[in-house]
């Protein structure tokens, strides 16, 4: 068991290394001079040279790479061109809203999507199923920001039920947090709900066709227990997997949601960095988000062993 966990943890190392290489290569291997692009159209030669030096682009490529890896290992993600502050400090300042938003979204989405998916699978082929699936396609297709603006328009501007902008910390202002987080959570959760519902339905449906479900029915087991004791427990692994993989969608969506609702989180940090051409911040954030994603999926993988006795070390 411990060996398995150790091995799974170790297996993230090459993936993280490749992520680091990809992010490193992104700046160095794109055609054209990235320093010129980053400096922008009105930049002077001096500004370009300064950017080149600050990104270390004037060093030989292997030296650049070694420096980059060493710095990552030391927790140094570079320095913002615009504010001259360490990227890690900036990320630390903006961490809370994003974490809170993703947390509420995951909890909200999973508690809606899993029952919905099981229900759809159980009623497969009926109108209930078709309605739930239509809702899921809708969730996939509605761009996060369009949904966000529709919600703001309806509940913020027309009905005036909820504040349309900003973020309050749950530690200082729980009520304010609750009222500001509702719409972003729904907005961000939509596509995630669509995804998890779909996969839950599909996996439960597949399991329902298995021989052991027939065995359970042949024992005289009641339908409710067939569904929850036999089916859902077997479908848990693909559902857990998609919850993990879906985190990537959530991270992308958070960037947009924070922009729409003006939440001062990491997503806004990205958008501000895009506008200011502050490449080290973008690079650092991609790295942090990717590593978070890898670690979450590793934790879910380890959790599998608790769910499914077949998966063994």
């Amino acid at each position, binding site marked *: 068991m411990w060996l398995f966990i150790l*091995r799974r943890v170790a297996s993230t190392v090459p993936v993280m290394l490749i992520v680091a290489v990809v992010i490193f290569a992104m700046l160095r291997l794109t055609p054209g001079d990235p320093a010129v692009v980053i400096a922008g159209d009105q930049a002077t030669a001096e500004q370009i040279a300064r950017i080149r030096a600050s990104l270390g682009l004037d060093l030989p490529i292997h030296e650049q790479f070694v420096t980059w890896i060493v710095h990552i290992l030391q927790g140094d993600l570079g320095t913002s061109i615009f504010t001259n502050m360490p990227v890690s400090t900036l990320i630390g300042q903006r961490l809370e809203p994003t974490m809170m938003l993703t947390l509420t979204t995951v909890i909200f989405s999973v508690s809606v999507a899993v029952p919905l998916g099981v229900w759809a699978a159980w009623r497969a082929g009926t109108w209930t199923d078709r309605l739930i699936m239509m809702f899921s396609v809708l969730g996939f297709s509605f761009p996060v920001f369009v949904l966000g603006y529709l919600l703001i328009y309806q509940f913020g501007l027309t009905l005036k039920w909820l504040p349309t902008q900003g973020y309050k910390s749950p530690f200082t202002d729980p009520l304010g947090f609750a009222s500001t987080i509702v719409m972003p959570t729904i907005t961000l959760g939509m596509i995630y709900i669509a995804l998890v519902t779909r996969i839950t339905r599909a996996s439960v449906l597949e399991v329902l066709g298995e021989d052991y479900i027939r065995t359970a029915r042949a*024992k*005289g087991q009641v339908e409710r227990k067939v569904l929850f004791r036999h089916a859902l427990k*077997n479908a848990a692994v693909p559902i857990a997997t998609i919850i993990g993989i879906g985190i990537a969608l959530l991270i992308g969506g958070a960037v947009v949601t924070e922009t729409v609702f003006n939440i001062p989180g990491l997503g806004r940090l990205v958008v501000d960095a895009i506008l200011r051409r502050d490449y080290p911040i973008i690079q650092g954030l991609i790295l942090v988000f990717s590593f978070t994603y890898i670690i979450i999926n590793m934790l879910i993988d380890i959790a599998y062993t608790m769910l499914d*006795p*077949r998966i063994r070390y």
Partner: protein
Amino acid sequence: MTEASTQPVLEISHLSVALPSSGDRRHAVIDLSLTIQPGEIVCVVGESGSGKSVTAQAIMGLLPKGQLVAERGTIALQGEDVLKASPDRLREWRGTRMAMIFQEPMTALNPVLTVGDQIAEMLAIHTDLTAAEQRARVLEMMQAVHLPDVERMIDCYPHQLSGGQRQRIMIAQALILDPALLIADEPTTALDVTTQAQILKLIKEMQERRGTGVLFITHDFGVVADIADRVVVMQHGNLVESGTRDEVLLAPKRPYTQMLIASVPSLVPPHREPVSGPVALQTINLGKTYQGTGGFLDKERVVKAADQVNLILRRGETLGVVGESGSGKSTVARCIARLIDPSEGQILLDGLDIAHLPEKTLRPHRRHVQVIFQDPFRSLNPRRTVGQSIIEGPMNFGLSENEALSRARDLMGLVGLSPDALSRFPHQFSGGQRQRISIARALAMQPHVLIADEAVSALDVSVQAQVLALLDDVRKRFDLALLFITHDLRVAAQICDRIMVMQKGKVVEEGATRTLFANPQHTYTKALFDAAPGHDFTKR
């Protein structure tokens, strides 16, 4: 209980089960009547599509909703009609009055629950026993089906058990509430022959001790001979013939039954002259080792799928390779056809070692060794016509399309199909016809060595006989060296000149078929022969 002894356990009368309207048949079961008395084993025998499994589902009330409907008739379970029972009442009966075991014990058990929990579930559904009482009953039952080390096994998951142990779990689960009727749907078909013999013995023992009525569904007349009190033969949903075991097996009245029984190969090999043609194929110390990748912190697993295999095969000769699953017989075949690369040893094809030739140098030699695979539904590309599949090989070796097509047309006649089959797609043919097409495809290459890898195992017994005859015919006609891989001793007895018995990757015994069957030497060979079902019935 006194009443039950006079009353039949199951009485089906005039049952008809309708198929969905889109199919080519209107009924899966037509006007079926049969009776099972307490303590009696009734075997329902039939080929695929005979309606035997549908009958079982109908009795359990488990017909797939919306697809199959019991239209007419009654199914009286201890005098009460299953078809008229309410869903709740039916649920009550399942497990208490009737229970079922299935063909594939791996998939029939829930992989994420311990086997103990699954047996105990039966008690949880139908009794008020406490958890401790349940556990005690489960342990007792597991002992009754002769499972070893039950205290430990009760907390195991299905994947930790062998196939035979899993089927014992299924039997324990089915019989723990002493149902009056046990339905067994091909319960030994997925098992090796030695395991099959043990499970059959167990079913018989349990049934005798408890006086259970058993409905035993099978396609295997050997099994019927070993276990049945009475036999019911079905074809296309109709009851063809029924009677006691001896009536049906020894003096069948209906032509269909006679044909079926005549198709079962005998366990007594016919006399065959030794073959003295030139050596077409020889392996020397052939071995295939599978190695777990042995990644980081990974335990290295080494499996010797084939080990030190030496064989000689002459033109015009049939060599049988016999063994249970995991014996390495298919590995040997696939190495010789170079579908997998052998780890060690030599494969001499007409004197040339092809064991380690790289693909480019190997390709010209590939045409000399052709393979016929087990699954007729997967061995032809569904998107290409039969003709395209057959001419692919000859055209690889320089024949023009017209030449190849004319050869294909000739071969169609030879394998007993009409030449216009060439322009049709595989899905338009039955399994037996597809095996004929596969044989034609192999012959189109004019090979020296033909490998039949369980080539008749997936076929119904009547079709099997025809395909075997065809194989034997083409062997003679083209002076082929035939390497015949099978798990079925009856088939091997009839077609092979010599037999090689494999176990766990090694050859344990080898000899002329008649000698080997008459006087097996190795303990494993003896066990294998003893386990073959229906000994007494086909020593005709």
